[in-house]
């Protein structure tokens, strides 16, 4: 996430909605990897620790993958 944030910080135009989507994809990938490694469904904290963010941030990021955060984006994408 550090690298993502640094990358995004260079471009102030980047919207939260977009960066959250990237994080949500990373969460999905990490969850799959951990499931294989642990042979069970990983918990939120296990996924958060693997990525190096707080569990609450995962919840926030996942919301971005559910629906467009704003109508503007629906129109735009």
């Amino acid at each position, binding site marked *: 996430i550090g690298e993502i944030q640094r990358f995004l910080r260079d471009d102030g135009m980047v919207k939260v909605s977009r960066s959250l989507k990237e994080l949500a994809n990373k969460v999905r990938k990490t969850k799959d990897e951990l499931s294989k490694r642990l042979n*069970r469904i990983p918990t*939120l904290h296990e996924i958060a620790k693997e990525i190096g963010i707080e*569990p*609450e941030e995962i*919840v926030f990021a996942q919301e971005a993958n559910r629906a467009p*955060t704003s109508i503007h984006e629906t129109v735009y994408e």
Partner: protein
Amino acid sequence: MMKPVHTNFMELCFNARSENESFARVAVAAFLSQLDPTIEDLTDIKTVVSEAVTNSVIHGYEENPEGVILIRTEIEGTKICVQITDYGLGIEDVTEARQPLYTSKPELERSGMGFTIMENFMDEVMIHSKLGEGTTIQLVKQLTPQSQQSLVN
């Protein structure tokens, strides 16, 4: 030695606007994150919060954005309790409202499955409602053994 049971609560208050539904879901799920649930558990709870908040917006306040919605979330060990309250129209016949496929607003293409979803995803669903005074939905869930186990680790 027994560890003392972890308890915590939060309360949330916002207007009955559809753009607050997503905020309410995230706030409840973020609060419950401290219990270390699985993502599946959290998704269930978010769905249920959405259903209840949507009901308050559409049925309780008939989309009047001045309406106020309250959410209280409590944690007691691995048991969670979420209470959603509105001060809207209320429900005349709660038994009828709980029936799968029953909806009082077929013209809005409502599915009539809100309460059924809540009952499927949660252990207990209590509905307190009074015509003209409002509705409180109380939802209780014991987190799955798996997430309980990982709490102990």
